[in-house]
């Protein structure tokens, strides 16, 4: 490469008309300083000024676009004669394309308060739209389920089993470990607080009660929301981005039946099973802490469990599992269908699926807790 000569643009006013001298290498490396110079000169130099490009060094598109803006088409076409062919062609190409390209006008800044209101409004409307879409989608799933329920020859058992394996069996270790630990923590808390009243025996009730009614199903559902809803969205979303959903439709098949129903059914089966596992592990966690730090032997733990805790608590907990399962699967699949085109969209909708399903699970659980309490169950 030949050495770089520092570029410059100077206005020579010693003769009439004034002459604009362009020298040196007009390249990207000097863009910032050249841009400053040329903006200053553009205001100074009158329309009749001529340009002298004879000492121009190397030129690239960045420099050419600056020259085109500084000199304008008219002047540029007169003064390129002495230039090498390549530079002349470059100037001409750049000038012609810049001509039909005007810089877009930026929108004026609006007051912050207005922007804030607009964002709030948008968010509220989005929540409303999402809720409507979810309700519609739930209806669609129920309709497809009911219609297919009476056509056993169209049941798709293989994908259901495959999804049960992915969402149920594969999640069992993490669910078991997590609930075991939470069970131990609850027992510790109970032991500390109840010891002050000399009622450490009630730790057994605390652990069993909370796990059977709430913790087992809630923890499992939240784990499933994070693990399974996101997986459903990513699976269906990347199929959508790849036009596979469209291909399914054009083959005369129903994506609801092919993709959504197996996933919903699988989660409907695996979430209650995992909930049951979670109850056992949570209680075992509690029992271990009781045995180690409260001197309540496992045999005593079990007999207390039998006398104090009615079976209705187990049923109340387990009854919530299918509802959670259905909503988590529905939200996961729906967000997948909302994906449009890009990889970024898959990411955004996966996040949204997790957030929405955790939100729905907790809200529903709170409502259910109120309901069961009022009913005295």
């Amino acid at each position, binding site marked *: 490469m030949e050495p770089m000569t520092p570029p410059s643009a100077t206005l020579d006013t010693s003769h009439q008309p004034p002459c604009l001298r362009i020298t040196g290498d007009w390249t990207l490396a000097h*863009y910032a300083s050249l*841009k400053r110079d040329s903006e200053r000169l553009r205001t100074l130099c009158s329309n009749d000024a001529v340009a002298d490009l004879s000492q121009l060094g190397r030129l690239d*598109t*960045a420099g050419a676009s600056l020259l085109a803006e500084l000199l304008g088409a008219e002047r540029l076409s007169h003064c390129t004669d002495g230039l090498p062919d390549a530079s002349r062609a470059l100037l001409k190409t750049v000038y012609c*394309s810049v001509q039909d390209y005007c810089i*877009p006008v930026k929108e004026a800044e609006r007051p912050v308060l207005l922007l804030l209101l607009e964002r709030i409004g948008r968010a509220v409307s989005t929540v409303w739209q999402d809720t409507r879409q979810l309700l519609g989608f739930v209806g669609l799933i129920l309709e497809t389920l009911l219609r297919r329920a009476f056509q056993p020859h169209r049941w798709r058992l293989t994908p259901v089993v495959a999804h049960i394996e992915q969402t149920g069996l594969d999640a069992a270790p993490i669910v078991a470990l997590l609930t075991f630990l939470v069970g131990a923590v609850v027992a510790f808390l109970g032991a500390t607080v109840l010891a002050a009243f000399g009622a450490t025996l009630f730790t057994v009730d605390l652990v069993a009660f909370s796990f059977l009614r709430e913790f087992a199903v809630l923890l499992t559902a939240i784990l499933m929301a994070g693990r399974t809803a996101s997986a459903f969205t990513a699976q269906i979303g990347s199929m959508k981005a790849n036009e596979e959903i469209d291909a399914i439709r054009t083959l005369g098949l129903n994506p609801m039946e092919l993709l959504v129903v197996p996933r919903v059914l699988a989660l409907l089966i695996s979430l209650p099973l995992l909930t049951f596992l979670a109850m056992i592990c949570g209680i075992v966690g509690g029992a271990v802490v009781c045995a180690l730090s409260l001197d309540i032997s496992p045999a005593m733990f079990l007999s207390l469990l039998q006398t104090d805790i009615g079976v209705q608590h187990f049923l109340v907990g387990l009854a919530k599992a299918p509802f959670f399962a259905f909503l988590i699967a529905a939200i996961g699949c729906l967000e997948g269908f909302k994906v449009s085109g*890009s990889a970024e969209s898959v990411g955004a909708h996966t996040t949204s699926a997790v957030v929405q399903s955790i939100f729905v699970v907790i809200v529903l659980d709170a409502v259910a807790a109120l309901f069961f309490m009022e009913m005295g169950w």
Partner: protein
Amino acid sequence: MSGRETVIEARGICNRFGSQSVHENLDLDLYRGEILAVVGGSGSGKSVLLRSIIGLRRPNEGQIKVFGQDLAELREEQRSLVERRFGVLFQKGALFSSLTITENVALPLIEHAGLSRADAEHLAGVKLALAGLPISAADKYPASLSGGMIKRAALARALALDPDILFLDEPTAGLDPIGAAAFDQLILTLRDALGLSVFLITHDLDTLYTITDRVAVLSQKKVLVAGPLAEVEQADDAWIQEYFHGPRGRAAEQAAARPGQER
């Protein structure tokens, strides 16, 4: 071609994937200012060759010299300096989907040329105009553009740093004939104006007949022939004869020979 200065010199390239070998002892040169087309059947390793040259894949054997330097032996910073002189147009555009078209083009300008954001976006506008994109597309995201516009935007990004070598992977695939012809002319104009050397992978016979200076045929794991189109056409090989003298090859040749058809 003045002096025939080589900008890329590949010698004895071997590329293997496990037991499957794609290239064996492949030699290829790219001269300054020429448009070299690489053709070959599907799976003949055209894209692998491209990836080897631009340094995305290290060949199992052989040496690739770019501007006289071996990329594999350079240190990180020097390597980056050489790589800035490459412009690559990937087959599907590979535009960053989280950025607008303007931001896509402005990114290398901000990162490497050290321009301010406003300057970079201004210059990005010029490059987009150069690639023939309308102003209305500048603030759009890649997901909302047509295939032809994505190709043009990707070309604008490839040209952002005024590269010396432009690599194009099937630039006209998926474009309509009018768009493809316009794209061919655009590459020709840019080559003449910017003095680019162009390494072009294509299946488009019209492109071959309209804009290429030299053609390299990739077959049987090496470059079978490389030379001006007229020479390559005459090569004594069944695949080459089928390629250039099959029904599509003849039609493209006639179209290119017909006067007044240049767009």
